[in-house]
């Protein structure tokens, strides 16, 4: 790492840490319905919404009702995204007359955006009308993010309450997180992005004659409004095919820094929300500390590997050494304005969180540099993770860690005053095992079938990595890709849609079940035998559990892909 890269990473963490506590406390206040200024201002709008929906805001739901509400709401979202894509040619705001999207691609995209994955088999500028981008995709950017957040809030209520039958009102929670958190943050961020050069219009594509007298068509669109929530909601689906590498999505290094910040902003803040709601902010800091440690290690590794460059280029007399006049390193698939430090840092952030936006093409990373995003997804998207889903994923691992510690000393495990019993451990097991199952089974089926192998671009072990990356990304709801894989085929559209749907909801439902069961329990007072869960010992235990589960699941698959490729590259093949 260059000194500049260290400085960038340090500044990033500093600004992030300064923002998470105030935002975390604000989210806790919003979700508790405390009469803070925002809620007093938005009160009338909220009341109208509840009246039209026939909802009484004080009437709470048990976990099963809450889960059904979430499934219904997201299922409806997927349906509408599908319909708008299939009908876009006949609807307004389609100046390029883009055709209706075919059925398997529309199905994949509908599931993708409803599950906060935002995997994209299509290329935005040649596929989606402005109306589809706004009314289907931007909406799901908001609503899938809101869904993730309200589910973790329900789980936290499970810890915070005792002998309670309910975990909250899903409709009220969804409304409040959208109106008071996601919308204002997005509005601010969108205007900032325009100031940097992100476009925001509904004009037809602009035709120009270039300096060398060839025609060039500049794709246009309402980009800034979607870009803002794409990052804040850890969605990651680009308006354009090149995602945040496209200069109209991410024009300057400053816009890039704020895009990186906005990815971790809410996942980081929710740790403080958690601490606040369970009445001990240190509990939140402990979880955040575990996330930051893993993140820093991964970021340093990714930047270091990319800065080393491609040994095959040196024989061609190419200069890859970093200096004052160039970033150097492996610049294939990277932008000049971002260079190596920003590209490596962004790749780590976007896959630590389940964002999936990219400013560099991960497929062209060095073997080990590309393994970092892959591993971060495979750890289950718990290093910050998706908004809400990252924290509930990490809390699932926390329960697992406490269970293991309890077994070692022969005591009934307890977390935050709640006994961890057989039901919770069953739910934890489902939540932890469902994604590795989807990833490994999906990858195996794909590489054994002709349809699966047909999509591979790069020869050798890298081709296997492309498939493994696709299923890791889909099942963990990340959405980034080793984009050489031609995934817009009926085979991949259906396989990956299945992975995305179950990777999302087969984790979410057990988490809500656990929320219900925890809420119903009595609170037991801490005793001398209680393991403290706010100190370094717990952080180490949590890290160990995350790494152990992740590595045990994926080491053989990683050995077949990036590890072999690295050895081949070193040998100069």
């Amino acid at each position: 790492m260059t000194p500049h890269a260290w400085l960038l990473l340090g500044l990033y963490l500093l600004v992030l840490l300064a923002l998470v506590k105030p935002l975390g406390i604000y989210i806790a206040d919003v979700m508790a319905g405390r009469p803070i200024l925002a809620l007093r201002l938005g009160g009338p709008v909220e009341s109208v919404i509840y009246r039209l929906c026939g909802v009484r805001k004080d009437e709470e739901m048990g976990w099963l009702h809450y889960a059904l509400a979430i499934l219904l709401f997201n299922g409806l979202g997927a349906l509408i995204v599908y319909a708008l894509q299939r009908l876009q040619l006949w609807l307004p705001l389609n100046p390029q007359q883009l055709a209706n999207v075919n059925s398997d691609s529309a199905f994949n995209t509908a599931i993708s955006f409803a599950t906060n994955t935002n995997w994209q088999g299509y290329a935005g500028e040649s596929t989606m009308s402005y109306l589809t981008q706004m009314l289907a995709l931007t909406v799901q950017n908001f609503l899938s993010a809101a869904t993730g957040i309200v589910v973790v809030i329900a789980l936290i209520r499970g810890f915070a309450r005792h002998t309670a039958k309910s975990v909250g009102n899903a409709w009220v929670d969804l409304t409040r997180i959208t109106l008071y958190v996601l919308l204002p943050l997005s509005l601010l961020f969108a205007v900032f992005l325009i100031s940097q050069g992100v476009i925001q219009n509904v004009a037809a594509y602009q035709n120009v004659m270039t300096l060398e007298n060839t025609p060039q068509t500049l794709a246009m669109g309402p980009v800034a409004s979607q870009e803002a929530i794409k990052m804040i909601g850890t969605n990651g689906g680009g308006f354009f095919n090149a995602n945040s590498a496209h200069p109209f999505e991410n024009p300057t290094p400053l816009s890039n820094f704020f895009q990186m910040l906005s990815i971790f902003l809410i996942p980081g803040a929710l740790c403080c929300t958690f601490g606040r709601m369970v009445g001990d902010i240190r509990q939140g800091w402990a979880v955040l500390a575990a996330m930051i440690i893993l993140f820093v290690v991964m970021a340093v590794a990714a930047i270091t590997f990319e800065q080393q460059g491609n040994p095959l280029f040196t024989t061609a007399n190419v200069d890859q050494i970093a200096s004052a006049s160039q970033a150097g390193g492996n610049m294939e698939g990277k932008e000049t304005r971002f260079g190596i430090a920003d590209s490596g840092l962004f790749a780590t952030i976007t896959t630590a969180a389940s964002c999936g936006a990219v400013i560099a093409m991960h497929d062209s990373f060095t073997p080990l540099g590309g393994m970092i995003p892959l591993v971060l997804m495979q750890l289950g998207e718990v290093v910050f993770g998706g908004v809400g889903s990252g924290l509930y994923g990490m809390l699932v691992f926390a329960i697992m860690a406490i269970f293991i510690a309890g077994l070692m000393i022969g005591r009934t495990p307890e977390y935050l005053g709640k006994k961890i019993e057989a039901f919770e451990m069953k739910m934890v097991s489902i939540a932890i095992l469902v994604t590795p199952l989807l990833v490994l089974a999906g990858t195996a089926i794909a590489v054994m079938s002709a349809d699966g192998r047909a999509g591979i671009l790069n020869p050798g072990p890298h081709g296997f990595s492309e498939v493994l990356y696709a299923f890791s990304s889909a099942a963990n709801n990340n959405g980034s890709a080793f984009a050489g894989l031609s995934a817009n085929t009926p085979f991949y559209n259906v396989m990956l849609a299945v992975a995305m749907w179950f990777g999302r909801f087969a984790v979410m439902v057990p988490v809500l079940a656990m929320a219900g069961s925890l809420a119903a329990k009595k609170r037991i007072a801490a005793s001398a035998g209680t393991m403290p869960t706010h100190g370094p010992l717990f952080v180490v235990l949590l890290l160990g559990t995350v790494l152990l589960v992740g590595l045990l699941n994926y080491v053989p698959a990683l050995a077949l892909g990036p590890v072999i490729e690295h050895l081949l590259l070193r040998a100069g093949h």
Partner: protein
Amino acid sequence: MKTLIRPAITLFILLTVITGLIYPLLVTGIGQAVFPAQAAGSLIQSDGKPIGSRLIGQHFADPKYFWGRPSATVPQPYNAAASGGSNLGPLNPALKDAVEGRVKALREADPSNTQPVPVDLVTTSASGLDPQISPAAAAYQAARVARVRGLTLDAVQTLVAQHTEDRQWGIFGEPRINVLELNLALDGARPKPQP
């Protein structure tokens, strides 16, 4: 279950209108009012006609211009209606061949230059639309451009220096040069008088 259907549908419609219509149109309105040039794509006009965007790179193959990053867009390079990278893996023989081919093309355009080629000049960008090159990539090409245009090397280097942007706020991103703007400035520069 029945008690859930009405709120699910109604809330979905209301939040769709708020986040999918009101919000993007509000942002569009603010953009038009406060940053109209950026919102429309930072277009560069020449004689009243748009000749490009300062954010979107253009393809340069004429030796009198500075060349930008190689572009992997299809069917032609710098296709701003179909962004994307090459996605070639580091071990892919096609990548090595492509890089060697680009080194050769640069050498043929300027046989006297035997320095190592800066990596950004022979690798494709992520978007295929990268508007910028590194100062090293500009320095590598300065002598060629000066010779073809009949300008002094000093004059070209001065223009390059004028168009070099430092890291934003001293820390973000990398030093870089906007290729289209530099080439426009070159076209405006006067050749040295012939002896």
